[in-house]
């Protein structure tokens, strides 16, 4: 048992935090959000310089190699700084799929990912699937040496800006994954903005034709890959939420210590103190579960892994809701303005719940294993 971080992890944390504190101010966040692309090229370039884009990619493939806890450290810092750039989507989820199952040709892209030259997206969502990865309406049919894809994808993180997309589609023998260039004919990508300023896309595949080597792994072998990618995403989101909650708790604490009413700091009121104690408890429970989620990503036993992932996403969602809502409430009128970071954290935490399965979805998944 050991809950300490390695020297390298501490270094990553410190250097990233220093960089983000100096560079990724609330004003910068606002400006990037307003631009609508969800990704500032300069920030992305500096992420590459810091080495974090190659974290999920082994050295042999041009990355720097790292484990789930390195990713946890990075995601916490990104959450703390309200970073909206699609780090998770490219460096952990997209790269993770190619590292795990990409062909040698596909894996050649990874060096460019680590260098910040290529962004990846995972087009897992569909209009009618909610968060069920196995529920796919998108089809891929074999036509000679090519595959022809038809269907619609929804709420794809960085789907419009990504250079390559991983697209799950139903084929004869199950779910298969395809790696498709972003600029492909017969694929329409519409960028949409979310409440936290990041970018998602609606994608229409209207007879999109790709060659046989676009297949990732084997035909029909896509579901376990998609599940693993989703689990990586959930662990990352949990860590991001923990970082955001940390920052939000600190903001709220500073506020109740300085804001004076009735001649005293409002933090001297027991009605608020006890609720702050609950916020801390729930933030720490969330941290505990984010550790568990990252630890279990590598579990050999699939049931054990998915149980921990669903448990973590549910509990982190619940904590994020409580901490977010209470933080806004304790800031009073200031909490509902755009002016303070408070509301931005609250929004981000709220959207995390709707990403890769909300509380109900994961409680259902977890519960199903109870009676299985």
């Amino acid at each position: 048992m050991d809950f300490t971080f390695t020297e390298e992890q501490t270094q990553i944390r410190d250097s990233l935090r220093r960089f983000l504190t100096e560079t990724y101010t609330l004003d910068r966040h606002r400006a990037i959000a307003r631009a609508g692309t969800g990704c500032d090229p300069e920030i992305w370039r500096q992420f590459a310089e810091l080495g974090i884009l190659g974290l999920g990619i082994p050295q042999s493939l041009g990355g720097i190699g790292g484990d789930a806890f390195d990713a946890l450290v990075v995601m916490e810092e990104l959450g703390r700084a309200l970073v909206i750039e699609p780090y998770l989507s490219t460096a952990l989820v997209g790269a993770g799929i190619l590292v795990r199952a990409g062909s040698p040709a596909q894996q050649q892209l990874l060096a460019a990912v680590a260098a910040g030259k290529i962004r990846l997206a995972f087009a897992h969502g569909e209009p009618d699937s909610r968060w069920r990865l196995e529920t796919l309406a998108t089809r891929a049919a074999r036509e000679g040496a090519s595959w022809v894809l038809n269907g619609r994808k929804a709420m794809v993180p960085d789907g419009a800006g990504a250079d390559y997309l991983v697209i799950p589609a139903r084929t004869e023998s199950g779910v298969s994954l395809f790696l498709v260039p972003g600029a492909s004919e017969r694929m329409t990508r519409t960028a949409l903005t979310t409440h936290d300023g990041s970018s998602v896309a609606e994608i229409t595949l209207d007879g999109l034709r790709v060659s046989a080597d676009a297949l990732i792994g084997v035909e029909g072998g896509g579901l376990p890959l998609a599940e693993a990618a989703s689990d990586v995403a959930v662990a990352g989101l949990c860590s991001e939420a923990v970082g955001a909650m940390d920052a939000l708790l600190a903001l709220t604490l500073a506020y109740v210590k300085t804001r004076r009413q009735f001649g005293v700091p409002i933090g001297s009121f027991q009605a608020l103190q006890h609720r702050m104690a609950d916020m801390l408890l729930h933030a720490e429970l969330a941290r505990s579960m984010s550790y568990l989620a990252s630890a279990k990503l590598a579990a050999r036993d699939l049931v054990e892994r998915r149980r921990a992932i669903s448990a973590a996403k549910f509990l982190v969602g619940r904590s994020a809701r409580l901490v977010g809502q209470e933080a806004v409430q304790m800031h009073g009128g200031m909490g509902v303005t755009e002016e303070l970071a408070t509301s931005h954290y609250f929004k981000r935490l709220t959207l995390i719940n709707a990403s890769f399965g909300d509380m109900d979805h994961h409680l259902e998944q977890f519960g199903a294993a109870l009676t299985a």
Partner: protein
Amino acid sequence: MDLNFSPDEERLRGEVRAFVAAKLPAAIRDKVLGHKRLEREDFLTWVRILNSRGWVAPAWPKKFGGQEWDAARQLILEEECALAGAPPVLSFGPRMVAPVIMTFGNPAQQEYFLPRILTGEHWWCQGYSEPGAGSDLASLKTRAERRGDSYVVNGQKTWTTLAQYANWIFCLVRTSQEGRPQAGISFLLIDMKSPGITVRPIVMLDGEHEINEVWFDNVEVPVANRVGAENEGWTCAKFLLGHERVSNAALGASKRALRELKAIAAAAPTGGGRPLIEVPRFRDRIAEVEIDLMALEVMVLRVIAMDRERHTPGPEASLLKLHGSRIQQAISELAMEALGPYAPLHQPLALSADWAGSVSGPAPGLGITGRYFNYRKVSIYAGSNEIQRSIIARHMLGL
């Protein structure tokens, strides 16, 4: 970062499991798992069995008969014992009064009292709360007046758990009215057989006798039974509170209770052809409490690791107590609800081990509703959850 127990610790888990399986008398196990009333002798039998292996207080220093186990090993021991249906080793002796005697007591006190805790010869109870001193413990009024080599103690303690079984009580008493309330308190060890002590049962809402009032009417206590200096008992009291850390999370007990809840829900008919556990509305609630329990376990491990590094207990135990008590109550509530229309049954006679009559209602159902009522206590005792929140606000948030 590594959330796993070490191979050594896992080996210990195996040893404990095998030991408990071989040594825990079936009659006692059945009482515990069946929510039957435990007699004094049941607790003591188990203490003696554990003592044969040195496991009553393995965390103690070697010079006092312990093995200097760290909190991780204790957790494993407690959890395995709880899961197997062993009676709990009550904290009052080994984990409450003993550390005080070790730290503030003199060699004579250490030599006399500590071994008797391990053998079970002394059953300790706690004389802290009074009718007028609950959360505000320092306002206690039980007074001890010095007369030569003795104190004469007068007053009343209350909520004294299992005082009816105890032969010793550790008490906070007022020895001075000067200064702050905390300043005039002393820590006394009192023989329950002393003339002038009266124990009166308090019947709890489940109809059971678990707690008591203890009255002191001119009780003579040798000055030699004072631990630490006169008027410095508050130091002992605070020290003692810092020692009840991980066990308040009740991790092992809650794991057992969750296992039982699932069994009850899997057996509970719903009139619709499927058992209760398959009804999504109920299943979700079990799932949520199980997830809370998973988080509690990681929190416990984190606190253990933190203590290991800093060597002094911090205020995080309050987080464990808050969350652990919530889980205990949530599971007991769900288990009661799982009984459905049978939940209201009260069968106090059947709680005794020698009951030969019939028991009505679902098979694993006896005592479940009583426990729900009884467990309202867990957010009240050992520092109410409101006190825990105040501790967190003050010591962790600086409010």
